[in-house]
Each structure stands twice: as C-alpha cells, then as structure tokens.
C-alpha cells in the first residue's frame, strides 16, 4: 500500500535544496534584473523593465545570441552524430571495446578549466602541437591561428567541447542500444534487411528515448556554455566566440552592471526553456516501447 506521506518525506530534502538553491535565487535574480544594481553597492535602485528594453537594442546581445545558437547547433548535431556512430561500433563484447568506452569517457570527468587551458596550448599557432604536427608531416600550409582567427575560433571551441562530452553521449546511446531485444534483429535478418535498413527501421526508432535525452542535454548544455569559452578565448577574438553566458558575466562583473547582466540571464533562461519544451514535445512523440 503506497503511503503518500512517506513519499513526501523522502522527497523533502530534494524539494528543500531545489527551493533554496534554484527557486529563491531565480526569483532574486528576476528582482535584480529590474534594478540598476552595480553588484557591490549596498544601495539598489528600481528601474522597472529598462534593462530589458536596453538589451533588445544592444547589438552585442544579438551577436552573443547568434554565437550561442551557432555553437549549440554545431555541438548538438556533430556530437550526437559522432557519439551515435561510435556507440554503434562499441556495441559489442570484448575487452578492447570496454577499454575504449572508458577512454572516451575520461574527458567528461575532467574539469573544463583544465581542458580549456590544455587545448589553448594545443591550438597555439607557433608552438602548439597541432600546427607543429601539421608542419612535420608536410601539411604546414594547413596550419592556422585556431583561436585567434575568427574564421576558425568558433569551430575550435566547438571541437574541444565535443571532445569533452562525446564519451558521455556514447554511454547514454549504449544504454539505449543494449536495451534492444536481439530477436528483433534476427527477425530483420530473416527478412533480408541490410545494415542501413537495420539501423533505420529497428535500431534508430528503438533508441528514441536515449536520443531524446542526449539531444536535450546537448542543447541545454551548449546554450549555457561559459567555462570552456571563458578559459580559451574569453569570447574573443573581439566578439567572435562570445556566448550569452560570457557576455552576461562581462556585463555583470567587468562593467559593474549586475542588474543588466541579470536581465540577460533571465532572457537566456526563457530562451532555453522554450527551446527545450519544443524539442521535448517533438522528440517525445517519437518514442515507442519495445
């Protein structure tokens, strides 16, 4: 017999933490976004929706929004294609496969700061591993200023982000893949299905839940990106890699415009919320129980 009282008791710690660390700060943030607080003074002036009006006309906000969308699109698509591919290849038994799964997962366990710092050295145009290696194998002409050239800086940061998180996506896809009953594959083989048809008609539809989760995590995580970009380029060169989170941090702390920065954060929240809800609606509809 289920007792709602016990259930509530078990959920209470989570609810308390959720309220204390998420709901209250969110409400607080919304309040500060209606002020022109500079982030340090004990004095706070209410200014209504002025900050929101300003940010609608701030070209830097639109640039950051564009950068964030490009980053999210590239990461979500490329990372999921790559990790699904690797998951399919790793969906076997064997020690090599198990070893590789761990190896791919290691970057996801490292601190973004450490990764960003090390990759900055890799990308260094003169001394970095990438350009030096290209030079050594005779492809020196392909060497670029990976982080300092705005043509490449976004792709370089995207690449490092994918490098970091692919392992995690692989694990989630593997979990989905391994839940597919083998008799379905056998039935497909009997009917003469080839590899690609097998994937399209059996595998892909049945890993829809894993697919949904991965896309959701990728989109939300990449729309919020801050630490990797801040460490590698601080949003540079110029504003080429400035994401919304990096911009709001600069406004809040470097420009002493905490109220304005918070308004940007609130806008970011609603944008991400809207995208996530839409995406969930679309993808949830595809899911079927095996």
């Amino acid at each position, binding site marked *: 017999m289920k007792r*709602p009282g016990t259930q509530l008791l078990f959920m209470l710690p989570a609810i308390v933490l*959720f309220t204390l660390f998420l709901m209250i700060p969110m409400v607080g943030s919304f309040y500060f976004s209606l002020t022109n607080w500079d982030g340090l003074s*004990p004095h706070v002036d209410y200014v209504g929706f002025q900050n929101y009006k300003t940010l609608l006309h701030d070209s830097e906000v639109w640039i950051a929004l564009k950068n964030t969308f490009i980053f999210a699109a590239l990461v979500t698509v490329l990372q999921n294609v790559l990790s699904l591919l690797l998951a399919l290849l790793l969906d076997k038994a064997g020690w090599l496969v198990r070893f590789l799964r761990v190896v791919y997962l290691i970057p996801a366990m490292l601190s973004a700061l450490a990764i960003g710092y090390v990759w900055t050295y890799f990308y260094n145009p003169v001394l970095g591993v990438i350009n030096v290696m290209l030079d050594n194998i005779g492809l020196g002409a392909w060497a670029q*200023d990976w*982080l300092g050239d705005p043509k490449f800086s976004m792709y370089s940061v995207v690449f490092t982000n994918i490098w970091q998180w692919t392992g995690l996506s692989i694990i989630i896809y593997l979990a989905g893949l391994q839940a597919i009953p083998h008799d379905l594959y056998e039935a497909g083989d009997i009917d003469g299905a080839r590899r690609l048809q097998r994937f399209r008609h059996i595998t892909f539809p049945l890993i829809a839940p894993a697919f949904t989760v991965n896309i959701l995590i990728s989109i939300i995580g990449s729309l919020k990106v801050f630490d990797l970009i801040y460490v590698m380029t601080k*949003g*540079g*060169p110029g504003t080429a890699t400035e994401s919304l989170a990096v911009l709001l941090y600069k406004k809040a702390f470097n420009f002493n415009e905490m109220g304005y920065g918070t308004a940007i954060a609130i806008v970011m929240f609603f944008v991400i919320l809207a995208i996530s809800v839409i995406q969930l609606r679309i993808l949830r509809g595809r899911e079927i129980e095996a």
Partner: protein
Amino acid sequence: MAGTKRFAGLGMGMVLALSVILGGCGSNGSNEGSGDSPSASKSASPSAVSTSSGKASPSASQADDKPVTLKMLHFMEAEAGPSLKEINKRFHEKYPNITIEYENAPVDQYQSLIKTRFASGDAPDLVGVFPGTWKEPFVKAGYLMDLSDRPWVARLQDGAKDMESMDGKVYALPLDQNAIGVIYNKKIFADLGLSIPKNWDEFLALSEKIKAAKITPLALGNKDLWVTQIIPYAMAPSAIYRDNPNFDQDMYAGKATFADSPWKQMMADYIDLDKKGYFNKGNLGTSYDQMVQLFATGKAAMMVMGNWGLPAILAVNPEADLGMFPLPYAKAGEKVYVSSAIALGIGASANTKHPEEVKKYIDFWAEAENNEVLLKQAQAFPVFKDVNPELSATLKELVPYLNVGTYNFLDQKWPQGVQDTMFTGIQSVLVDGGKTYSVDKMLGEMDKVFAAKKGQ
C-alpha cells in the same frame, strides 16, 4: 495508482535534476592559494620571538592585547609571494598577538570576488586596491577606510598619493610602480649590431633589420585581453599626454573624445606593425605565457611589456641577458615619455572590527625596509620619496627615461567599462587590420561607454 506513480516520478526527476545541477557546479572554485602562505604565521609560536636574531626584540608594550586575526584578500601572490611571507613573518614578530590570514586570487578573479564579498557583507579586513578610478564605486558605497591620517602619506611621491586618493582623501597604500617599455635580448642586438632606437623611424628600421635576420622582431600574445592594451599604453604618454597633460580631464568635461585624438594614429601604427610582419604570426591566438616563452627562448628579439615581465622571462631562461628601453613613439628630436604606474596597493574595509590592528599592518608595509623587500622581489620601482632600493641592471636602464616624463596606465583614470570595450575593440581591429571592424568603430564604442559611465 497512476497519480502516485506520477508523483513519485516527479520526485525522482527532481532528485535527478538536482544531482545533475549540483554535480555540474564543478569544483568549489575557492581561490585560496594560501596553501603555504602566511597561514604559517598562525603556527609561529612565542618561542620564535624570543629566539629571533640578535635584533632588539620588539617591545611587548603593544603586544599585551587580545589575539586578533586579520583576514586579507589580495592578488599579490603572483608578483610578491615570498616577500609577502617575509613581511607577514616580521609583522607577527613585532605584534605577536596579531595573525594574518591571507587569501589570494588571480587578478581577474579578484575583481569579481572582492565585489561579491563586499556586497554580501563578508568583506575581509584588508583588501587589494587597484590604483585610480577602480576604487570609486567602493568609496561611494562606503566600503574603504579613510587612511589620510597615516604617517606614511607624507612620504609618498605626489603622483602616487594622487592615484590612491579620491576627493582629497587617501584610501590605500601604494606599494610599488611598474613601467612599460621594450624588453630586448641584448645578445641578439649585439649580434646584429643594433643600437637603442630614439624615435619611431629608428624603431621601425631596427625591426626591419631583425626581421631580415629571420628573427621575430616583437613577441606578442594578444589572446590574453590585457596584453592588447600594452602597446597603446606605451605609445600614449608621448603621443597624447606629453603635449596635452589634461586630456583625461577634457574627456570628462566632454571637450575631447577618443575618436578625435592621436588614438587614431596610434591604432594605425599598431596595425602597421602587424602588417609589416614585425609580430609573431597568429598573435591573436597566442597567450601571455606563450609570448614570454617566445621571447625567453630567443625566437623573438623584443617584447613590449611592463617590468613585471622580467621575472617571468628569467623564470623560463635564467641566463637571459635583458635590457629595457621606452617605446620611442616620437618623431626625431621629440621627447619620449614613459608609461609608468602604481601596481600593488593595500586598503582596508571601513567596517572592519579591528581598525587599529589593520592600520598597524598597513603602516608596517609602508616602512622603508619592508617596502624594499617587496620591491626587490617584484623587480619594481619605488613610490616613496625616501626609498631608493638597489635596482637590477635592467631596471636601472630605464631610470633616466623615467626622469624625462611619465604618464600612468590609461585605464586608471577611466570609468569602469571603457577598458573592457578597448580590449574587445583592439582584438576585433587586429583581426584583419581594421577592414571589417574599423578603428573608428572601436574608438566610437569607447567614447560611447566613457560618456555613459563617467558619472558613476
């Protein structure tokens, strides 16, 4: 049954979401570099006082008070770590009842950290203070203690006192000053038979000769935003302030703008150096550390940097034979002014519970022999009229130029936000020499922010 299932599902979902969020918060990010710093002074036992070297044991007259712990948050560990420990040790010997708890944060993290600490009422007793206008919001909010009555104020050089004051009151103790110039590799200069350039044309010709010898003339690491400003800062004293020392006041009065000033020519010359190939390739993707490496390993002959770069270079290559001359951004026969400004400063929280102890600590740093310890460690110039430390040979080269004329680092007189706008602007301009993002646009943005923030 479906209801409770959904309820349980919701609860599980929330727990899961919470663990993901908290897990994603990552490391605590506490910047306590104080691992082996003066918290060691906490364990200094009284026996250390009685066995201290033959010097007269500091009198116990002040030391009869209750034990006090002062919290200090600063960014000086990078520049002054060992001297910080030494001075704290000496301080504890003089006042055994006072202990200093030091917390460090790298410069850019310090800036956000100190604001949050003050705003949340968790201010340390002693804080690092940046010279110039940085402290204005803090003074306006009543966070900084007025130190105008301290004995060391009268000993400060005029410019130094001015930088740490606001509305005639002194709010921090300046410790040292730095100058920006061209650090050069003496061996390369000797090998190529080069002499110190006295004007811009000579500087360009010299760079051309170095380039012809297949050595990078100037190392540059513009990926780190603060490096982008060094060359304009080195140019500005000769370009603007030598002939118009009131330029900053004019800007505040609305009579002058960046767009309509020698800034345009300065940026054009900056771009020119890049176009002529005098910088390392991919300088927008090179960080400060990598720039120091390029120079220290002899791949570049010069670098425009402040004297704080000298210890960094020597750390990479202790054998390096270094010299320094000011960036000669002047026409033949004109005087060259040097960019020179206060670096470190210590201030106090106005609401500290131990004002007397805090003042004693700050006074201690101002004493001549303690100040000299810092200057030696940081390889910097003095700010007191009566302190004349033995400077390294490289620093000595710069002294005659400093006596011709100087101006401070420009952001020290700007409202908050202009410097950040400049950083982004310089990077955007240097991407393709101002074609996509023009110098005019950059200066226009700087003017906009200056006008918007100058009242604050």
